[in-house]
């Protein structure tokens, strides 16, 4: 394990930001801390980095107890949501910062900085200042700066949160490729489930300062531990008072075993997928079907359909 967090508690005044949080992050993995804002994920990341001190509990990094170690001695790379660029230093000097602190020889620093700038595609911007870069470029610079010191773990706090949608998507894919190249244990915080699913090997879902579930994107999507995880990770609708994914609803024009009668209230075509709004005894739900099955069913508003769950009932979903 690269990072071990055990029974960590942290509160700010009366607000409990983390309650008995325990997480283990395997070496070389790319892990997302996912959850709604105020859920404690950024606080957990900052506790791991040493930027925030836990009230109780233990933090271990690469087998070494780091609980009381100051941030500067933890060997972590940290990337901030708002870049935290050193405004008075050029891009190259920003990246060189950690190496200059470590008093590495000039030639070695220059070589390393050149390599990293190439890695983040900023080689032609070496002599510019952060103010002359776009948001995406600044964040790539911040990433190069964090990687320069060869951290044991790389921590990113909502790294793409301040960027616009297009750049965000590009950087996401780029981060995934970068991780495959560099292999440093990486943890990033996000409130965007799509981002977590797309980029991470494993996801830690957090809400209200507690860990809700830990698993691979598939595990979480297919076997959510509770209703919160299920609804946070993807679209849900309610059938017979139970949560179900809209694409797990089977629609037919004939009654079948276990089906209930539903009325189509609205059919919306969204390219390949079709959203079907339904009503069962005055209760609203919706189903997601492909364009093909929509045509097969000959879906129109006001039509009567028969609905049942196509996947087995989720044990977890029935719990609460």
């Amino acid at each position: 394990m690269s990072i071990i967090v055990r029974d960590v508690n942290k509160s700010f005044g009366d607000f409990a930001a983390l309650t008995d949080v325990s997480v283990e992050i395997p070496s070389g993995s790319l892990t997302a801390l996912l959850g709604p804002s105020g859920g404690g994920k950024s606080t957990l990341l900052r506790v791991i980095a040493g930027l925030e001190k836990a009230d109780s509990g233990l933090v271990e990094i690469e087998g070494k107890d780091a609980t009381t170690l100051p941030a500067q001695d933890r060997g972590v790379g940290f990337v901030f949501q708002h870049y935290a660029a050193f405004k008075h230093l050029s891009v190259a000097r920003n990246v060189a910062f950690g190496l200059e602190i470590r008093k590495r020889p000039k030639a070695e620093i220059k070589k390393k900085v050149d390599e990293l700038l190439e890695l983040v595609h900023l080689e032609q911007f070496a002599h510019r200042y952060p103010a002359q870069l776009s948001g995406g470029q600044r964040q790539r610079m911040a990433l190069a700066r964090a990687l320069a010191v060869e951290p044991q773990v790389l921590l990113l706090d909502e790294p793409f949160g301040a960027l616009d949608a297009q750049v965000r998507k590009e950087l996401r894919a780029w981060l995934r490729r970068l991780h495959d190249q560099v292999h440093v244990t990486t943890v990033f915080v996000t409130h965007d489930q799509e981002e977590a699913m797309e980029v991470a090997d494993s996801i830690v879902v957090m809400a209200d300062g507690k860990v809700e579930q830990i698993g691979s994107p598939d595990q979480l999507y297919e076997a959510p531990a509770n209703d919160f995880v299920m609804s946070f990770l993807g679209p849900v609708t309610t059938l017979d008072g139970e949560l179900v994914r809209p694409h797990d609803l089977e629609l037919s024009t004939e009654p079948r075993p276990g089906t209930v009668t539903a009325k189509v209230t609205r059919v919306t075509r969204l390219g390949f997928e079709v959203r079907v709004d339904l009503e069962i005894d005055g209760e609203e739900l919706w189903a997601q079907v492909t364009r093909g099955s929509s045509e097969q069913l000959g879906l129109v508003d006001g039509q009567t359909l028969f609905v049942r769950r196509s996947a087995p009932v989720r044990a977890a979903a029935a719990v609460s």
Partner: protein
Amino acid sequence: MASQTAATVRRVGVRIGLRTVVLVYLTLLLVCPLALVLYKTFENGIGPVIDSLTTPSTQHAIQITLVVAFWAVVANTIFGVTAALLLVRHTFHGKRTLNALIDLPLAVSPVVVGLSLVLVYGRLTGVGKALAGIGINVIFSIPGMVMATIFVSIPLVVRAVAPVLEEIGDDQEQAAATLGAGPVQTFRRITLPSIRGALAYGVVLALARSLGEYGAVAVVSGRLVGRTQTLTLLVQERYQNFDQQTAYACAVLLVLTAVIALLVSRLLRPKELKS
């Protein structure tokens, strides 16, 4: 239409009225007296001005003024940056009190400052005797004058630096920490360069205030001619002894320094504080 024109006329009238009031006010209180001092100084040409600025007592007063101002500015620069960091970057009990205390020198009359220093460090007090015992005389000598000057110029550096520290936030400092920089390295490499402009602005203001201080220094210095006489004290003493040429020349020197300081501070004033 008619009412609109009337409104415009009224507005123009108000504007001209306000301008007149402000201009007359400044002319009577600032421009006229200063112009008259300038005129009186150079009434007999530049020769007498140079003569009165090069007498031993004037030279000595200039020297004392510079020494006192230098140490006061050094002390307030260090204290100002420390206090600003404390106020902006930390939460602690008594923060509001400290905040209020820093502005106190703006409200307290410098004469009161001088008197209170005499009460604490005077030759007949316990503290004063103890210090005199180890060879340090505070009152009627340079240390007391430096202390008085520090007191009156305390808020200037703090109030110039604090808003800029607030503005830049602590992201960069935290980033430096994760990159392995200790507190001292972080301050020297990240914080200091970020507040450089504001700090210079505060230092120039503090310097101007220190060079021109009269009341507090007058009380603690004992106005010992040729020993603890600063430029402002010299102006007062010469004027009373009917050596108006020297009084005027030194006054012009002080005004000139103030104007230069003002210009420099305008140039250094950080963008965040510009209106």
